[in-house]
């Protein structure tokens, strides 16, 4: 489904005094259809950059990303926008339109292409039901709680029936109870709609509760990739042990 090949991302220009920051160094990863793939790491490890490259907000310095055999880097114009519609993205900060109500926010991606109003309306109702916000259809984001906003963002990301859902710290701004319900919803989406999910997180609990595969990222590289079982039962690197709370050397 998604193939990441020798991906390197360097910020900044070599000539500038501020110098360069290597965010990702020669990263390889393969995500299969139906996976709930957790990418976990500390702040600054490069995980957000990885997601930004996946959703084409950043251009890789080197290497390639393939979505269903299609090179994302080569896409321009309409083909690029079509690829965008294949990927739903959920952000930590929700990024909803604050001046539009819940319905209008969810309908937004559907109305970017020629559409039939009745179809959009029907799809929005379907999505509202899926995320359990039917009674909030006319509410504005400022009237919603964090969990509700994230549900709206999820519904919006799923509107175009994407093949993959990319989540950047989807629960980091939520309390533990709300986190649980959002994660349950994600699991439901994966199992019932067959949407492949990639979750960027720094919380091991997120990985534990819904992922089937995990990649641990540290200092711009993957230190460990495998099934959740392998990694939880037999962590090899210090950073993984640290994240799991199993000691390891802390350097602190």
């Amino acid at each position, binding site marked *: 489904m998604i193939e990441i090949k020798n991906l390197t991302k360097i910020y900044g220009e070599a000539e500038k005094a501020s110098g360069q920051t290597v965010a990702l160094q020669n990263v390889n990863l393969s995500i299969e259809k139906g996976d709930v793939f957790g990418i976990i790491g500390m702040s600054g490890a490069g995980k957000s950059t990885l997601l930004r490259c996946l*959703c*084409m*907000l950043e251009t890789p310095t080197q290497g390639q990303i393939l979505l269903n055999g299609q090179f994302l880097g080569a896409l321009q114009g309409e083909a690029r*926008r*079509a690829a*965008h*519609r294949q*990927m739903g*993205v959920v*952000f930590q*900060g929700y*990024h*909803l*339109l*604050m*001046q*539009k*109500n819940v319905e209008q926010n969810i309908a*937004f*991606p559907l109305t*970017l*292409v020629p559409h039939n109003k009745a179809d959009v309306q029907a799809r929005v109702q379907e999505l509202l039901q899926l995320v359990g916000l039917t009674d909030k259809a006319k509410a*504005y*984001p*400022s*009237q919603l709680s964090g969990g509700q906003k994230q549900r709206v963002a999820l519904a*919006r990301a799923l509107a*175009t029936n994407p093949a993959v859902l990319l989540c950047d710290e989807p629960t980091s701004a939520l309390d533990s109870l709300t986190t649980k319900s959002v994660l349950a919803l994600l699991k439901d989406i994966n199992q019932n709609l067959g949407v492949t999910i990639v979750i960027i997180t720094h919380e091991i609990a997120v990985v534990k509760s819904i992922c089937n595969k995990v990649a641990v990222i540290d200092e711009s590289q993957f230190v460990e990739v495998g099934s959740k079982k392998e990694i939880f039962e037999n962590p090899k690197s210090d950073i993984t042990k640290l994240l799991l709370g199993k000691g390891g050397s802390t350097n602190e």
Partner: protein
Amino acid sequence: MNEFLAKFGPILLKGTLDTLYMTFVSTFFAYLLGLPCGVLLTTTKKGGIHPAPRFNAIFGWFINIMRSLPFLILMIFIIPATRFIVGKAIGATAGIVPLVVAAVPFIARMVETSLEEVDHGVIEAARCMGATNLQIIMRALLVESIPSLLRGLSISTITILGYTAITGTIGAGGLGDIAYRFGYQRYETNVMYATIVLLIVLVSAIQAFCNLLARRADKRNR
């Protein structure tokens, strides 16, 4: 009081109407041109949705130069253009041309400031949903900044209203012209005070109206 109104009422009424006419027509045309300029300034900036740093620098310079010209000089300088566009250089309609020319760069900067306030994440989210640049501008940037744009509108309108006093001095009419002729040239201070009161009322009304619009439009604090 009655005597005063009988004598100066018609003049003051005409002055008020001329001022309102110049202010609103100028504001309308200035936004028609200034809004796209503001969008262009924001979107072509480094990190904008369509970065074009060289164009942005040149365009920014041009805006700054236009804003640096004192209004009085600009007004006299473009009299030939005014005559060409409206056919004459005197009267309220002729006053509109320099007002628009002076207000466009000002409004461009006001709009730029409003658009800058829009959360960059929202724009990235729109991009991730497959929005074109035009769709991002029309449906995310402008929509999200409506309350701020409306607050800017009150500032722009009141600034233009202030400038109408200066166009008055070259024969455009309006309250400023009356205040100048009667108060300064003829020592009829009562007329001047009356125009000042009228101007205060106009400014307050414009401010209150725009504030109301902005509050009504803003869905954030409900």
